């Protein structure tokens, strides 16, 4: 996993609620191997959502509530990532999407509904307005310069900062798992 510490970039507005993972990557593309470029199929049937900026120019998505709801397909994160995005800002995320994102070096930032609405308004007036993220300080700097704090679990933050993998850590705990298994009576 690639580390993510700071990011300053143009942002893409997707001013919609409930953008589901079927929209982010339609199911017919899920059979592609991970080695292929999923950026090609990001919002495949609604490519206009990606706006006029060239691919890779915007690295942050700002969207309405419940972004990434629906199917557990990790391909949704892969498609955003491969296209060039590294973070999304929304009032809420689909739980599984959020978890998948953090495991791929993609930062899901939850901010208050009115703060996100404000950012979407700025982006509507000024497409490509810039936003800055700082994982260490847990801050988002909005286009107007206002700084907002966001929450993230300490371990997920550490993994992002160091590009570290959860699995590597868990494997170091194999003894604890074995100990649990010895005492465990299955339900």
């Amino acid at each position, binding site marked *: 996993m690639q580390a993510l510490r700071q990011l300053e970039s143009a942002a893409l507005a997707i001013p919609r609620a409930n953008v589901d993972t079927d929209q982010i990557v339609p199911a017919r593309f899920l059979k592609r191997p991970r080695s292929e470029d999923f950026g090609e199929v990001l919002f495949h049937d609604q490519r206009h959502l990606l706006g006029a900026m060239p691919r890779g120019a915007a690295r942050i998505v700002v969207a309405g509530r419940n972004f990434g709801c629906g199917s557990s397909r990790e391909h949704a994160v892969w498609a955003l990532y491969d296209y060039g995005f590294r973070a999304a800002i929304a009032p*809420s995320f689909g739980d599984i999407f959020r978890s998948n994102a953090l*495991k791929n070096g993609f930062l899901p930032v939850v901010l208050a509904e009115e703060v996100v609405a404000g950012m979407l308004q700025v982006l509507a007036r000024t497409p490509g307005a810039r936003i800055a993220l700082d994982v260490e300080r847990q801050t988002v700097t909005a286009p107007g310069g206002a700084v907002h704090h966001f929450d993230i679990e300490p371990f997920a933050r550490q993994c992002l900062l160091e590009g570290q993998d959860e699995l590597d850590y868990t494997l170091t705990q194999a003894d604890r798992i074995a100990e649990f298994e010895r005492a465990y009576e299955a*339900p």
Partner: protein
Amino acid sequence: MTLFEKIWRRHVVLEREDGHALLYVDRHYLQDGSGPAFEMLRRRGLKPRVPQRAFAVPDHYVPTDSRDLATLRDPANRRVAEALTRNTGAAGIARFDLSDARQGIVHVVGPEQGMSRPGMLIVCGDSHTSTHGALGALAFGIGATEVAHVLATQTLWQKKPKAMRITVDGTLPEGVTAKDLILAIIAKISAAGAVGHAIEYAGSTIAALSMEGRFTVCNMSIEAGARAGMVAPDDKTFAYLEGRPSSPKGADWDRALARWRALGSDADAKFDREESLDAGSIAPMVTWGNSPEDALPITGRVPDPASAPDAAKRESMLRALDYMGLAPGTPLTEITVERVFIGSCTNGRIEDLRSAAAVAKGRKVASGVEAWVVPGSGLVKAQAEAEGLDRIFKEAGFQWRYAGCSSCLATNGDTVASGERCASSTNRNFQGRQGPGARTHLMSPAMCAAAAVTGRLADVRRLA
């Protein structure tokens, strides 16, 4: 303590200071979409830690017009389905192949075999894993990286969700099913209403539901944004499980039963959130838009964006009406359909097929409508055939097909064509869900059958 809390605590291997817990997984289901996780393991040189806790069945990519993978038109689909055989074979993971009479949708097969049981922690790389919570288990969907993590360690890191209780009391009116109930719940609390929560469904209505109805309700918890949905195990749960192939037997059964009886939420259990619903107020529901929260009683009309509470909602309604090809104010019963799909992990069980067959019996599928029945598993199909339901469907003009996920998400090529409108007993009406440009209306299996025989969305209570 809540049911959720009791199961959570039993499975904690490690706890971090930030409240994240490493949880032990009792049952890990795999399906033919699991290829990327096996690839991740291979790249790291890892092998499954406890292969006997995993079980695999192909469902997403299998054909439903035959039992031969060679009939899949797209060779890439075939490769995906075949990869499951290779991956699980090499890992020593038990599997039902396509040729096995017990093959089916993983969320139908697991409970059917007694592999999902009360108190278990169950995961699968599929969001509808919440289905298994109906048995009093903590069950949720995970992504590919997490599937690889579970294979390698038999554990999973989880942030503890909050506990939410949805209490439904009263009697469901005639013609109103578990599907209508869960659609009414989602319409009430919204598609994001339960984000970050594990839902426990409770109350007299839930207690009165059959196990199959409870599966339907828990299945769509994810459509309300929930991490999991569950129902406390009771005598119905135990009767359902007794004698199933993987259920405990003899003295083991008695011991298990004693543990299961203690699982329910304590009388003084505290929930972070409570919602309630009156079952008597629910009518047969259909969706009109592109989110499961866009559900209305069949007696209603297509809503008018002009009455939306704010601009964002108005725009989203306009977009949905445009995609769905609907005009505001149209009575829902005037919407005509070209396709009907009865099946899926939500509504592909025997009671679902019985309720649809009761409507189809002695009637004909309307002209210009293509209607499919896809049983949730080979065993459901066999049971339906033993009861003569297949004949009822075929005589009415339905296609009677083999088990699989099929047109719910159409990964196997069972698509609904662009612009076609489908009455569907599935779980998602997202844009393009059943195929690019396909227009999906969610409803119960009986309502699907009513749509098939009338050629339009119809109130099943009015079909005399």
